[in-house]
Structure formats: C-alpha cells, structure tokens
C-alpha cells in the first residue's frame, strides 16, 4: 500500500513531491519493500529536474546500506558513476558523496573509477557547486593518485583558490589535497615553494574561527607542523595563548608552540611559557613547565636561561608548579650535570610540599646524584625511607638506587640505609611523537575525527578490518594509480621521501 503511493508520487508533476518521495523511500529499511523501490529510483536518477536527480543519488547510498547486493545487481553503481558527468553541479557533488560513502565499505574496488577525464569533470563542478559539494569533491580528490607530477600540479592549481573560501571545512579539505599532492612535486621547483608559502596564511586564519573549528584546525596544524615544519616556522606568535581561549584550545596552542620553538625564538617562547606557568589549570601549567625543561635539554645555550626561569617559578611557591619543576630539573641534570646547580639548595628547601610520586622520585634522584654536595643527604633519604611502603614502586626503586649511590659516595653514613638495589626505569614522556607511517596516514585524514584524535581510524571505528589504510602518494610511481588504492602499507612506504628535521633547529623534532 505504502509502496504504491511512493511509486505514484515518484511520477507526480511537481518535482518537489517526486524528490520527497525518493528521499523518504530510502529511509524505509524493510527488505521486502526495497525491491519495489528500484524502478521508481531508476526513473528518478534520470529525472529531468536536477533537484530530483540529486536526491535520487543520495538514495542509492541509502539503499546500499540496506541491501548492498541488490544495489550492485540492479546496476545503480553504474548509474551513479554516470551522474558524475551530469550537467548540474549539485547532482555531481551528491553522486560523488554517495560513491565515496559506498566505497568506504568496499575499499579495494575502484568504485569511483577516477581517471583524468572524470577528474576534470570534478574540477569543473568544484567551481560551481555549494560549499558542501566542494567538500565532497575535495575529499574525493584527496583519494586520487595522479600519475605524474604534471597532473598533480594541474590539480593543485585548481584546488588552491579554495583556500580562500569562508567555510573552514572547505579550506581544510583543500589543505588535505595539497598536502598529499605536495609529495609528488619536485622539491626544488618554484611551484613547490610557492605552494608551501600559500599554505601558511589560510592555516593561521582558521584560528579566528569558532572555538570548535579552532580546535579541529589546531589538531590538524599539529600534524602539519610535524610533517612539514617549514610551512609555519615563522608564525609562532599566532600560537601564543589568549587568556579567554577555552582550555582545549590553550593546550593545543601550547603543544604547537613547543614544536615550533627554535634557537631563534626561544627567549620569546620562554617568556610566554613563564606567563602561563601561573595560570590556574594544572594540566596546562604542567605542560608549560615541562616545555621549559625540554627547551633546556634540547638547546644547550638556553639551559642557563631556562634554569633562571625555573628558579623564578620556584619562588611562586605554587605547589604543583614546584613539583612539576623538580621533575624537569632532574631531566636537565641528567643531560648537563654542571648547569643549574644553584637550584639544588632551593629545591631542598621545598621538600615538604612534595606529594606527587613523579616529583618525589625526581627529588630522590637529585639527592642521590649530588649527594656529595648535599650535607644532609642521608637525613633527606631517611625521611623518604620512613614512608617506604606507602610509596609507588617507581619511587621505591629510585630510593633504593639513590641510597646505593650515597653509600658509594659516603659509605660510613649510609651503612644503615643500604638495602638491595634495582635498576630504575625510564620516566614518561609528556607529548606524543608519531612513527612516520602513522603521521603520513593521519595527513591523509586531515579534517576527520582521526586527525582530531591523532589515531588512525582503525583504532576507533568498528568493523575496522574493512577500512583501507590510506597513505601518501609516492614520487615517480612504481605502481600505477589503480593499484595503490589497494596496496598494503609496507611496500609503498619504503620509497617515501621523508622530511628529516635538522637537529637542534626545531624543538619539536625530539624523536627518541
């Protein structure tokens, strides 16, 4: 009964009614009924009115969700592919969106059948459809592997104007396409360098958007800075935190600021970090203090400067600041044993306020290491020893090691303190660094949830075994465009040109 009225409505003289019928049809998830809907759908896909055709295109994707086999058997996928050549840009955009959605569940079939001819049709439609259609088309383009650098450059030239679009999602999708195709362009060409320069301003402008948009942009900029730090090297000031930024924006900006810090701007960065070490959010402060310590370790010349910044911070007597700092100072001492020694005395004065396990552990290490300079080292360690069983395993181990060190330096005083010794394990890092293959995969997903989580989609999407891993295109393709979609990650990544950050230049290039 209901079916009959749908079939009738699909032939109504009013295109609005025809389209509404098609749209509603797709929402009926009852197998028996869907068979009857094939004929009306077929007609609507060829309807004279573009509004009906565009709705029918989406309906194919809906039907595929209900009964994939039927959609394939009835030849609807071919009809969708034909719609890519439709004269109306909205129809093209919806057809692309539907095909992309369907191909997510068929990763290895080249559903869209992208080739230079229909790529051109997509590029034409790009200029004429709405902002949403542009996003569908750009996302689709980012999955295409151009056969050579000329084709890649041609596509880049047509995509670059979209960087000026007011819609930030269009901008991010355009950035995704450009970041991928950059891999294929010759590194010394003028075009390559011009493109790198063109990418910076739109990324910075994204930070004037609404907070959620800023957040997505920042998470993606974080990836871009890791992959191609040269793009935003000069723009560190943009990431200075504003007082009323939401906390999630502040944390991201801080992370990126740290990654962009270099010898040239370290004094500015330290001043900025010091400012934020007194902000009232524990996570943020800890990150800022940690960043100061990392700067000291990375850039030897700035170690003294960092040391004095840290001393200033100790004076604030803010409990969690002091605790975080002790951990950081311990790390500095491990690298440069003769800098910042003036700090030791001040640290010992603050022992009572230490309750964080990391801070206690760090303090114990310092006492053990500099036992000869601390007169009452044995008393200090003894006070820690009193609460031995309440401490975490980590702290216990450190304490034992420190006692042994003390024993070796001052045997008579330490006799009672000696117990069996263990090796102490490594501390924990406070920021994430990606394996190159994971980073490349995330670049292929700019703008998506994966880029915000900083995890590949198979880490959080159910049924992930059917999701194909994306990877960046390779220079001078040894496989042709069709194959790489289906390829595994192993073979293709061997030849990928890697951007190797120069040591000592950028702080963020701390790859252990």
């Amino acid at each position, binding site marked *: 009964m209901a079916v009959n009225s749908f079939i009738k409505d699909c032939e109504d003289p009013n295109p609005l009614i025809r389209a509404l019928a098609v749209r509603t049809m797709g929402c009926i998830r009852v197998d028996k009924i869907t068979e009857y809907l094939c004929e009306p759908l077929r007609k609507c896909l060829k309807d004279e009115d573009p509004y009906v055709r565009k709705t029918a295109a989406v309906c194919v994707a809906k039907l595929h969700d209900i009964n994939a086999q039927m959609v394939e058997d009835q030849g609807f996928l071919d009809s969708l592919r034909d719609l890519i050549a439709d004269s109306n840009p909205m129809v093209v955009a919806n057809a692309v969106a539907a095909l992309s959605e369907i191909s997510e569940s068929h990763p290895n079939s080249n559903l869209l059948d992208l080739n230079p001819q229909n790529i051109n049709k997509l590029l034409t439609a790009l200029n004429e459809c709405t902002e949403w259609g542009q996003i569908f088309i750009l996302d689709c383009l980012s999955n295409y592997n151009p056969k050579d650098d000329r084709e890649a450059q041609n596509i880049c030239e047509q995509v670059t104007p979209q960087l000026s679009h007011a819609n930030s999602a269009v901008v991010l999708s355009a950035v995704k396409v450009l970041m991928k195709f950059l891999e294929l362009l010759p590194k010394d060409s003028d075009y390559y360098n011009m493109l790198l320069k063109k990418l910076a301003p739109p990324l*910075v402008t994204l930070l004037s958007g609404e907070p959620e948009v800023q957040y997505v942009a920042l998470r993606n900029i974080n990836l871009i800075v890791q992959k191609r730090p040269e793009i935003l090297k000069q723009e560190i000031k943009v990431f200075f935190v504003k007082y009323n930024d939401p906390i999630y924006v502040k944390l991201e900006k801080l992370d990126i600021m740290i990654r962009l810090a270099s010898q040239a701007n370290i004094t500015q960065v330290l001043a900025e970090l010091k400012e934020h070490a007194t902000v009232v959010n524990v996570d943020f402060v800890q990150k800022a203090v940690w960043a100061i310590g990392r700067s000291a370790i990375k850039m030897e010349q700035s170690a003294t400067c960092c040391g004095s910044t840290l001393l200033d911070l100790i004076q604030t007597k803010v409990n969690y600041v002091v605790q975080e700092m002790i951990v950081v100072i311990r790390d500095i001492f491990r690298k440069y044993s003769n800098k910042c020694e003036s700090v030791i005395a001040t640290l010992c004065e603050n022992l009572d306020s230490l309750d964080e396990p990391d801070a206690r552990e760090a303090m114990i290490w310092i006492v053990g290491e500099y036992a000869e300079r601390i007169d009452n080292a044995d008393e200090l360690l003894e006070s820690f020893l009193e609460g031995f069983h309440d401490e975490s395993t980590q702290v216990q181990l450190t304490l034992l090691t420190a006692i042994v060190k003390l024993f070796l330096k001052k045997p008579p005083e330490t006799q009672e303190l000696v117990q069996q010794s263990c090796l102490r394990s490594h501390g924990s890092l406070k920021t994430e660094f990606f394996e190159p293959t994971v980073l490349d995969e995330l670049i292929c997903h700019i703008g998506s949830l994966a880029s915000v989580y900083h995890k590949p989609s198979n880490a*959080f999407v159910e049924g992930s075994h059917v999701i194909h891993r994306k990877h960046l295109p390779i220079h001078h393709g040894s496989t042709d465009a069709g194959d790489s979609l289906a390829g595994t990650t192993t073979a293709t990544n061997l030849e990928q040109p890697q951007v190797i950050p120069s040591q000592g230049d950028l702080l963020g290039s701390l790859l252990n």
Partner: protein
Amino acid sequence: MSASAVFILDVKGKPLISRNYKGDVAMSKIEHFMPLLVQREEEGALAPLLSHGQVHFLWIKHSNLYLVATTAKNANASLVYSFLYKTIEVFCEYFKELEEESIRDNFVIVYELLDELMDFGFPQTTDSKILQEYITQQSNKLETGKSRVPPTVTNAVSWRSEGIKYKKNEVFIDVIESVNLLVNANGSVLLSEIVGTIKLKVFLSGMPELRLGLNDRVLFELTGLSGGKNKSVELEDVKFHQCVRLSRFDNDRTISFIPPDGDFELMSYRLSTQVKPLIWIESVIEKFSHSRVEIMVKAKGQFKKQSVANGVEISVPVPSDADSPRFKTSVGSAKYVPERNVVIWSIKSFPGGKEYLMRAHFGLPSVEKEEVEGRPPIGVKFEIPYFTVSGIQVRYMKIIEKSGYQALPWVRYITQSGDYQLRTS
C-alpha cells in the same frame, strides 16, 4: 564522512528534537552525552569531541541549547562543526531568537528544516534565504503548484533567486576592521593584527554582476599601479563568501560575484600590522596584602586627532576578595562589577591624542585567600567610526545588470576592538 544523527538538547541534556539520518548509531546513545560532558568539565578536560565506546559526539552550544551530532565512523569533523553552526544560522534567520522556546514553538518547521538541511548525513541546502522560499511557516506546502523547489537550489547560483525587483537599486558597503592586540606585562607588543570584514546590504533587481575594487597591493603590482601616490594594503589572507569566483581572484585578484539578496558577509581579510596600538594602557596595580589594592590606569589615544573613539570600556581585573571600591576618573565613569571581578571604566567619547587617568582603591580582607588566582589581562573595547587602521579603501563597486539600471553604492568604514588585551604584572 558524515554525521549519523543530529540532536538538539536542552540545557540539561534532554533531547528536544532529533533526526536520525543514517540509522547506524542507536538514538539512545545520546543519553551518555550529558554525563560525559559534566565529567570532563569537572576534570578540566573539556573538548568539543567526546567519545563513549564506539560513538563519537561532536557538539556546540548556543544559548540554552546543545547541538550534538553522533557518528560511529571517521567523519569529517570540520564539516560537521561548520554544518552545526550553519544550522544555527538558519534557525536564527527563521526564529530571530534561538533558544529552547523557539524549538518548542516550532517543531514542525524545525523538523522540515532538518529534513532539507541534511540527507543521509550529507549537508544539502543551507542557504536560509532560499530555504525560506519553500519551507515556510504556512501549512501544507504540498498542494500542487502552490510551492515548488526554487530552481535556485540546484543552480550554479544557488544563493540568489531570479526575478528580484527593487524600486531603488542600492548597495551598502560596511568595512569593519577589528584590532587584535596582545601586550606583555612589560609593555612589549606580542601580537598585533587586524581582522577586517566587508559586509554588504544588497538591494538590487535581477541578477547583477558586481565587481569590487580595493587598493590591494598584489592587485596594484599586477596592474602596474604600485609605488608613488597609490597607497595600497597588503592583505595576508583573504576569505570569501561562496558567491565570489575564487579562481578569478586566484588568477588576477579580481573580486567578482553575483551577490545574494539582502545582507551577507562578502569577505574577510587578515593582516599583521606594526602600527601603534590605537589605545595604549599603562597600569600600576599595587597590592598590599591584608590591607588594600591601589590601581592607577592611564589610557592614551594613539590615533589621529580628528577621529574619536566611542563607547570606550576599559576593564581592569581586581582580586576576587576585594571590597569597598573608591574611584577617581579624569573623564568618564568607573563601575565595579563584582561578578566578573573587574572595574569597568567607561568613556563615551575619546578623541585621538588625548590621555586620561583613573585611580581606583579597594580594600582587601585581613585573611589572605588560599588559592592562587589567575592574572587576567586588561581588556579594552572601543569603536572608531570613519576610520581604518590598515588604510584599505573601496576604490569602486561596478554593478552590471542586463536591464542596465544605475545603482548607487555607499561605503562606510569603522574600526573596533577585537581581542584587545594587555597583560598585567
């Protein structure tokens, strides 16, 4: 790639209305959203993207409503947030005010709009002017012939209908520049940038072609007009409304477009500037703990004498345990706003080149507060009409329509404060 379902929730997290687009995420999952939000807020780890098991929530807040999209796939996050904000824009155009009452009073329209705005998770038509042509407050639109989908929806020009007519053809151009400033505690300028927008109010008949000419440095260089008397502006980054032909701009910096009807934002631009901050603040905040805090603020107008800043408001942070305020101002008035922990010094009219002073005195309790307080910066609000910092100029606005009418463009410039903050020591 897209959202699975969209919910509009009240301030407590209860769904008011929702639309299930894809059917792959159970609608009941929304129950997890509010508890998750509250928990993350308590931990100080709030984020716009929250996840519970396999379900991801992308959310934004507008007055007393939450708009939440759910998905179980690797959706395009920036698309979803842009879409949610666009949805709010459409609802605001329809209902003027958008809050819980507006949704409750207009369920039918909201449902119809949710149906039209997005299909199977793909955003479709989101232009509110066009939507208003066929989704209206009147009932039963399915009467044959009564309403059709405007062809505009699927046109290449999907933002302007055909057949618009005005007796008097005019265009109003507003160039609004916002100045963002961040000054360090020791007075050095950390960040200084201008974010400008050009807003148009278009009352033109037919389908006119418009071309906007600015004194854009890159354009001048391309056309050989640079140097000498021609003052130009170097725009670092420009963003356009979708009606502008982006490829033409990319090619030769021509800004050409067929405008939507009524008001819209044509473009926005950004440029860093080394110009002197328009309003400079020097402050001395002396805190004598257990007794009093004395604040002295000097405001200097560092812009040309002929211009006047209106509605100047300088907000100076005050410790939260301060009391008994006393003020002395050389001009304007000062008010203590305890719920924001600030003193607001308002000056109605602030001419360029002038310098004014305010002194404030607060008492502090004899018992000092335990917790550490943040140090909020001094904020400044102001508006300077007939003035731009960047020197941008609308050189011309060409209007061409096939019926050949003459239309008048009007231009207005204004500079206002954006994010204007001076840190205190």
